């Protein structure tokens, strides 16, 4: 597959926005979907639909096999040891809630400490905050440096004998900083501290190898990975899924149910209570195949070139200030414009068909730290091109003109 022509695989780009071509620079929020994924959903619903795992009729058997096929594909995609280490959730947010809740129930007590970073998305803070309220644990935030990066040292500094979990993002959705998650995991494990990676921004853009990273948990948003909405994935080492208590309770995750007690099913059912997002799981197989066909190395290369180009272009544009300048940077370009608020920028860009996001991007702690109430963010996907960056820049210039800058 030629990466230059990838845009053609995404039907959304056949449409106009305010009579302009769509320049979609909001992929960190959610990515667009390739034709194969949408077709799969369509075909599944119109030709093959059934609930999985419960009935023995033809459609149910076929659906169950397809459902489990996605689990195996995902296992291979992230090089997990066992397919049962892949748990389907409603989203990355649920994945992190699942870990915080069950790990907290079983292993945390008053005074225990959790290390997060100042880069964390609210989804990797609020669930831990609940444990602060209910269990009296402490939350420590590793601080960013002046480039908007998190160093190994900033985390090491916070580790004590009371540290029970390190929960950090793989790739910041604001500064684009890629964290040294392998090194952090090594360090944490040397002190027997488990590590959760919020992989929402890592998974769509970087090559993943769970066994090499070695982390205990890795949370993924399928809708940011060219997949359907309403689906996430929790990767968790088998030992954890075996040890932790179940999360939600319902059909499909039990073994025996009596009036006075319940025994729970084994993996992977234990964590998949109730009817799952069947169609979405089955269609997500196409997202993985799509990524495999292009090759994640090619995606990394393409996006990294684009990011560099974007940094160059925006740096040259006076009055644009990039937020963070990490050495190891993923495909996010957050910026401010002197004297023009991010929301005004977003509205003006939108008129040209340039879709970006403005606000705190669910990272209020980081924005407080940076002294910014809002930033503008252009984030890239596999379908973006240099032309998109140029259009972004042109529209930024239009903002400046409107605001007489």
């Amino acid at each position, binding site marked *: 597959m030629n990466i230059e022509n990838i845009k053609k695989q995404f039907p959304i780009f056949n449409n106009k926005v305010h009579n302009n071509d769509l320049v979609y620079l909001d992929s960190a929020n959610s990515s667009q979907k390739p034709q194969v994924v949408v077709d799969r959903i369509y075909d599944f619903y119109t030709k093959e639909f059934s609930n999985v795992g419960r009935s023995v009729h033809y459609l149910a058997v076929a659906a169950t096999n397809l459902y489990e096929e996605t689990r195996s594909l995902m296992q291979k995609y992230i090089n997990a040891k066992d397919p049962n280490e892949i748990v389907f959730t409603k989203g990355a947010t649920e994945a992190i809630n699942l870990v915080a809740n069950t790990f907290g129930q079983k292993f945390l007590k008053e005074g225990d400490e959790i290390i997060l970073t100042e880069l964390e998305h609210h989804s990797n803070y609020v669930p831990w905050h609940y444990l602060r309220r209910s269990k009296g644990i402490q939350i420590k935030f590793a601080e960013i440096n002046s480039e908007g990066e998190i160093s190994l040292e900033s985390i090491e500094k916070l580790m004590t004998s009371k540290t029970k979990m390190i929960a950090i993002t793989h790739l910041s959705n604001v500064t684009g900083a890629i964290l040294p998650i392998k090194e952090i995991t090594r360090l944490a494990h040397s002190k027997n501290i488990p590590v959760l990676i919020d992989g929402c921004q890592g998974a769509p853009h970087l090559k993943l190898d769970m066994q090499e990273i070695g982390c205990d948990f890795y949370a993924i948003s399928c809708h940011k990975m060219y997949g359907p909405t309403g689906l996430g994935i929790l990767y968790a080492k088998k030992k954890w899924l075996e040890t932790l208590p179940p999360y939600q309770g319902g059909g499909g995750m039990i073994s025996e149910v009596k009036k006075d007690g319940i025994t729970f099913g084994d993996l992977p059912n234990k964590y998949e209570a109730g009817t799952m997002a069947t169609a979405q799981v089955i269609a997500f197989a196409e997202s993985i195949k799509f990524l495999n066909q292009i090759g994640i190395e090619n995606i990394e290369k393409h996006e990294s070139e684009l990011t560099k180009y974007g940094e160059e272009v925006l740096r040259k544009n006076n009055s644009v200030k990039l937020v963070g300048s990490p050495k190891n940077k993923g495909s996010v370009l957050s910026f401010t414009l002197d004297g023009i608020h991010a929301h005004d920028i977003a509205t003006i860009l939108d008129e040209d068909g340039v879709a970006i996001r403005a606000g705190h991007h669910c990272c209020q702690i980081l924005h407080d730290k940076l002294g910014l*109430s809002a930033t503008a963010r252009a984030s890239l996907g596999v379908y973006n091109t240099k032309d998109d960056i140029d259009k972004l820049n042109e529209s930024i210039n239009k903002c400046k003109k409107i605001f007489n800058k």
Partner: protein
Amino acid sequence: MDLKELYQEIILDHGKNPRNLRKTTNFNKDAKGHNPLCGDKVHVYLKLDEDKKVQDISFEGQGCAISMASASIMTDLVKGKEEHEVKEIVKDFLEMIKEKDKLNNKILEENEKTKLMCLSGVKKYPMRVKCATLSWHTLTSAIDNTQQEINSENID
């Protein structure tokens, strides 16, 4: 083009140099407003005299050009008005932004109304309406002394 209507000269001017962006000394009513989606915040201070007339009004906060301009114009226009008049102006403004073509109140002068109508460009930008109305809802809250922070998620 709609953008020109949204970002009229007067909006840009008030957005850049907001009037009454300070804290009234000896204010006797105040309220805070917050838009959790974009992080915009506003704090409105009111000083009513014995006759319930607005002796001073000011605001603190940060936000986009629309929200700053809106707060700025609002504070300018209600200064010197009586409390019940302020309420009527607020009501009229919110109705105009939501559905009506023009302002109907008999309190403001025509040129004042024209100024306020500059904010009507926001109607074409539903996501931005909250930017324009946050300070107005916050003013109501201050007058009514509800002690409840206005959260723009819950107003429409």
